């Protein structure tokens, strides 16, 4: 018997994976947002330098990217498993169920993590295709920073966010991210059992703060670029 497969196929075990992967993803988003703050700089040099530095990690970057992809995959697989288990557990629902309030954290957002999650999954695919596998140096997206020729990632980003439809798509998806993290941040602590009565409330409040910070932090980037770069129709 392989003990780990058994551990992680129990309802509790899956939630350890869910919580750990979710938390790792939150950590990634914090780092990602900090990196993206370079987009608020007046020209693209800062972003392009940052991107070039990341590229400079070589095999290290690939390892990070593969690790991230596996984490997301694990999160998605367990997400569908736990949701499916719960769907099976109540084949016939109630006439009009109502929360009893009090300590309950049952809201439209927390009950529908799978829906906000699926939106995020679709977003991730689009986002990665658009920027990670978008127009490359070979296609002429180059620029020089400090005399060195680098990939002009900034141009890729700006060309997307001068289009109102892309801005709307990104802003919309980030709202879903906010709802996912509003429940998710606190939930990860509870899933891992690393919570106690004294810290439960502060962590739940911190979850709201993190959800707002990450959602708005990301969401203002396309808006900022739209208003600063598409000015009067001549970018």
């Amino acid at each position, binding site marked *: 018997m392989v003990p780990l497969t058994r551990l992680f196929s129990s*309802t*509790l075990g899956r939630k350890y994976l869910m919580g750990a992967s979710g938390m790792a993803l939150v950590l990634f988003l914090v780092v990602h947002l900090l990196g993206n703050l370079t987009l608020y700089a007046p020209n693209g040099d800062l972003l392009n330098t940052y991107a070039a530095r990341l590229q400079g990690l070589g095999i290290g970057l690939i390892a990070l990217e593969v690790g991230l992809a596996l984490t997301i995959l694990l999160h998605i697989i367990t997400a569908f498993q736990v949701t499916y288990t719960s769907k099976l557990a*109540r*084949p016939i629902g109630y006439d009009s169920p109502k929360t*009893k309030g009090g*300590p309950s954290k*049952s809201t439209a957002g927390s*009950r529908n993590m799978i829906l906000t999650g699926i939106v995020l999954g679709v977003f991730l695919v689009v986002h990665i295709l658009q920027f990670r596998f978008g127009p490359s140096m070979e296609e002429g997206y180059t620029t020089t920073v400090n005399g060195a020729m680098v990939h002009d990632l900034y141009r890729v980003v700006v060309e997307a966010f001068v289009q109102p439809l892309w801005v709307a798509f990104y802003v919309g998806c980030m709202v879903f991210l906010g709802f996912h993290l509003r429940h998710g941040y606190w939930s990860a602590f*509870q899933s891992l059992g690393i919570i106690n009565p004294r810290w*439960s409330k502060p962590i739940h409040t911190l979850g709201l703060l993190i959800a707002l910070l990450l959602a708005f932090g990301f969401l203002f980037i396309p808006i900022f670029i739209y208003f600063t770069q598409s000015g009067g129709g001549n970018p």
Partner: protein
Amino acid sequence: MSASNSKTMNVRLKIWRQEGPSAPGAFEEYSLSGILVDMSFLEMLDTLNEKLIHEGKRPVEFESDCREGICGTCSLMVQGQAHGPVRGATTCQLYMRSFQDGELITIEPWRAKAFPILRDLITDRRAFDRIQMAGGYTGAKTGPHADANAILIPKDIADRAMDAAACIGCGACVAACPNASASLFTSAKVTQFALLPQGHADRKRRVIRMVDQMDKEGFGSCSNLQECEAACPKKISIQNIAIMKQEYLKAAISADFRAGLGSADGGA
């Protein structure tokens, strides 16, 4: 007695009726007038049943025993809420004064695959018994009756164990949980023993076996919505679920688990 004793009200009831476990079932509506506002909810249903029996119809089947909130037998989903709208109370502790005159009251059985409906509002909750039997006891021989204070237990720990032990096994946590998870019940039983020295001997196998049984019964997966705590008549805290997660992880990564301690037929 208060002056409101003789005040009466009318109610309309929308009740789930189902002939047997595999019969389809449907809602039926009833009206009752002259219900005393200080009547208990179950007395109101008794009144309905007397009326139905008089009319030669089959009474509505529901469960109750102690009718004072200690046995966990009563189990009704009232107005979409487990045990009705009052927090920290069982259905038998619910009174008609919690409802409006003329209100339409919907009454349903607990809904979970692991709690199949036997008839009308009665469900088979033996899944809980099986979880309890899987490890919710201490198997260590305790010898002759020990002195009351032979084993010293700090007061705060004794209190927390007692809070967990307050669970009456009613199943409201499962009924109220949007995922039909039995985590609150199971964790209350796990924690009650895990906190006390008497429970330490079988600590690891207990949590593994009880969680295994819980999963086998077909309950859902906990999403940390805390609706169970809101619905629990004994206000059992989801902190117990966090403790169960710690206990389970500790037991699962121990060598005993790999040696097969978790399986139903034993091991060390």
